[in-house]
């Protein structure tokens, strides 16, 4: 959803606690049944948020965000629903993006990773780009409080044509 899959800085991932050695990150066996049920509900919410994004239902989409939601925008960050409203309004004046979540996996109790297939089209329907991406979502209850994009390697991103680096979302 959102930022076209270009890299965010690695520090953003680190801030989410995901750069610690995996063996030190939370016990997955604790309260498995409770967390499983909670995660199943949260996954429905996350998928609904992506559906709202792809359908460009702005009010519905913003309702899935916390009031202080933290969002990537190229090299910077957006904060709060108003900034996101403005961001998506501008984005949707240029492109139509379909984000289809293929799989969701929980990395921590309130952090899930979403594997998604993204297709960006121009307003006349021409495909601008396709990509398979990984988004990391921090949740507060059922609401999304932060999104980060798992980066490509530096040299890999440099190999991408400049026109694809443009934010088309």
């Amino acid at each position: 959803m959102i930022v076209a899959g270009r890299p965010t800085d690695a520090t953003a991932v680190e801030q989410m606690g995901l750069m610690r050695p995996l063996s030190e990150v939370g016990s997955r066996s604790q309260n498995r049944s409770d967390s499983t049920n909670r995660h199943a509900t949260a996954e429905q919410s996350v998928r609904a948020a992506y559906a709202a994004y792809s359908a460009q239902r702005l009010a519905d989409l913003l309702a899935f965000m916390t009031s202080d939601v933290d969002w990537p925008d190229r090299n910077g960050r957006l904060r709060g629903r108003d900034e996101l409203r403005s961001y998506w309004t501008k984005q949707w004046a240029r492109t139509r993006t379909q984000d289809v979540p293929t799989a969701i996996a929980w990395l921590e109790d309130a952090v899930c990773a979403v594997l998604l297939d993204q297709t960006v089209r121009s307003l006349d329907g021409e495909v601008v780009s396709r990509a398979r991406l990984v988004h990391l979502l921090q949740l507060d209850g059922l609401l999304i409080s932060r999104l980060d994009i798992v980066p490509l390697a530096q040299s890999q991103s440099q190999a991408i044509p400049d026109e694809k680096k443009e934010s088309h979302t």
Partner: protein
Amino acid sequence: MTEILFVHGALVRDGDWWWRPVAERVEDATGVRSRAIALPSCGETEALAGTAGLREDAEALRRALDAVEGSALVVGHSYGGTVIAEGADHPSVRELMYISSYLPEAGMAQGAIMSDERDPVQIAPQEDGTLRVDGYDQKSFTARFLQDVQDLSAQAEAWKRVTAQSASAFVTPTTRAAWQGVASTYLVCTQDRTTSVELQRIHAARTTRAIDVNTGHHPFLSRPDLVAAELIQSLRSWS
């Protein structure tokens, strides 16, 4: 004692079978024995389907390295390279070899590594938190992944070993880049129909030695002699 550890790719199981043609050649020539790592994310251990991902795969490799009495040459195919990045930070590791694989930096995930592939493998989620290749039968799988494997029985046996794998193996970011500072060889499969040569070369540039092989995605089945020769050369350079 020197040992080779093989780490297979995504969405398959039974590493012993995939690597056997190479392992036997190397052992015959050098006496060096090998093991294939059973990946929990592919249902090769007691872990419930969908519950084990990259973390558990890396831990399986780490445990295997703990059991090495001497030096290890770790070989990764495709996703196996991501497991190496996370799990091969170990004093027993002397050298690494990659076959159409990945050397991710810390903070990357398998799904993102493949982000810009023009024709990504179609995968579909299952109810249990796993993913499977989607839309393939033995014929189409062979055409994409095994087009240069002439042995019909090997084609059939390979298809039998295609399996589901936990989604978390694809989306969990790495926390280490164990390939850094370690001697390594990359076999670029120039006829690979599933991992582009361009993407392979990006990752090959991170190794200390890269070699083109005129094969598809599974040279250890189509040209085990070539893969074995590179391993034998590496092992002999140690002495």
